[in-house]
């Protein structure tokens, strides 16, 4: 066998492999995608919550998409405290105004951004939330201040339908 020349047969091989690869990928994709959230899970995308009975300084927890959402009615002191924090002291700098459109109401996913535990209310070094799993401390705006969590607790998409009702999702 001397020098290998590219011939018609090589082209046919390459073309066959290419078509085969596309076919295999097209067959595998449904097997992978079937594990993604299905239509019935996606259908439960929004929840309406009546918050008229929540007093200042109290938090309620509601379930949205299988996850807890904290709705806290903050006191004036807490709002002042949240606003007074310098962005330089934050691991994940976010202004309180950007997290709570209506400063009296903090609506956020009650899920620690470290590994997904539910943090405890009014605990920790910053009087906000404390995650018992691996020791992350959050402030009264739900921002990470100390511990392994990389980011602040997430703010879901929500809106006030009227003065007493919040629609999450």
């Amino acid at each position, binding site marked *: 066998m001397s020098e290998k020349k590219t011939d018609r047969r090589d082209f046919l091989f390459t073309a066959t492999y290419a078509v085969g690869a596309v076919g295999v990928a097209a067959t595998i994709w449904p097997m*992978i995608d079937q*594990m*993604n*959230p*299905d239509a019935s*899970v996606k259908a439960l995308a929004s929840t309406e919550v009546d918050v008229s009975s929540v007093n200042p300084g109290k938090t309620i*927890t509601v*379930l949205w*998409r*299988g*996850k*807890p959402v904290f709705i806290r009615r903050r006191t004036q002191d807490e709002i002042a405290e949240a606003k007074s924090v310098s962005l330089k002291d934050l691991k994940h700098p976010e202004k309180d105004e950007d997290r709570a459109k209506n400063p009296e109401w903090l609506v956020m996913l009650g899920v620690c951004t*470290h*590994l*997904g*535990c*539910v*943090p405890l209310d009014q605990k920790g070094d910053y009087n906000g939330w404390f*995650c*018992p*799993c*691996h*020791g992350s401390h959050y402030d009264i705006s739900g921002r990470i201040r100390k*511990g*392994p*969590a*990389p980011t602040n607790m997430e703010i879901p998409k929500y809106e006030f339908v009227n003065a007493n009702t919040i629609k999450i999702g």
Partner: protein
Amino acid sequence: MSDHQYTPKSKFGKWFNDRLPLLTLANHLTDYPTPKNLNYWWTFGGILTFCLITQIVTGLVLAMHYIAHADMAFDSVEHIMRDVNYGWLIRYIHANGASMFFLAVYIHIFRSLFYGSYKAPREIIWIIGIIIYLLMMAAAFMGYVLPWGQMSFWGATVITNLFSAIPLVGEGIVTWLWGGYSVDNPTLTRFFTLHYLIPFLILGLVVLHIWALHVPGNNNPVGIDIQKPSKDTVPFHPYIVIKDGFALLMFMIVFAFFVFYTPNILGHADNYIEANPLVTPAHIVPEWYLLPFYAILRSVPDKLLGVIAMLSAIFILAALPWLDTSKIRSAVFRPLYRQFYWILVADVLILGYVGAMPAEGLYLLIARVATAYYFLHFLVILPILGFKEKTLPIPLSITEPILGGSPNLAAAKNKESLDIK
């Protein structure tokens, strides 16, 4: 490996064996020449096979009564415990069997570490073993989720969230693993499917593990290459069969103790509370056999690096045959390695202990030191030790140290004269 020709005695046997050589295989397994100095640390391979079969048989039975649905799983487990005939026994064997399986596998792994069984020409056996160990951890984790108690739910949440540490695609992967936006029914059903599948994958890998073992043959406590068959070997049956059998009986006493006297001591009380996505238990801990890795995860303050450290702690084992540069296998002839070996054992036990404790204060400090030492052992100490260590003279055969006999008479004489001085 003995490659002598085997001919079945009966005419039918010969007819059959010519078409499917099962009898040749059986003969190989019976006559398989085994080093005659194997000690009881070598009996854990057989014990592990027993553990795997126990888990498969009890698991099959449990699957006949268990219902993989978020609304019914917890109740179906209680139904197994209270209503199903002997259900309590079968479930306790299965649950404690997982712990026994890991107990045996850790002894098996540390035996390899002590006697250098992972070194050439046994690297493939070792790597297959590490894959089996990884699959065992996956199976154990998913099995722990199935009762759908609080620890099941939150353990599943924490472990699947490890994947969210991956940059860019992490969140997408976690949603894909869950089949939703949190651990829920789709997660439970797929975990049940995979929990059912993995033991059979392990079974296949065990066949490869033993096949790869039978190519070079067993390592032995002296760690030298031996002639097979020779006066250094005994046939597997009856010698090793009896020894393995006796060790298995001793092991089963320990197993039975847990099953009948303290069936819940290795579990967590919170798992008898049904899963509640709104409340995280105050103190989440994995099962005892995962604690050292959990301690490593928590000792790193950064999320992604913590996950990487934890996974590296496992995968580093696969590179061990190349990290350990010493040509001498057995720690018996490596006075320095022997000391580092026991420090590593202590280090892993300490990691396991602090993994069960809250990640704060002194515990966190200890976890960090122990994590650093774990990697130091594999990445620095072992490679350097192979070059620096002054090893003891190794015998030429297994019988030599006992009888003074040796295939090489001159060398043996030489050694005797040295001994006299």
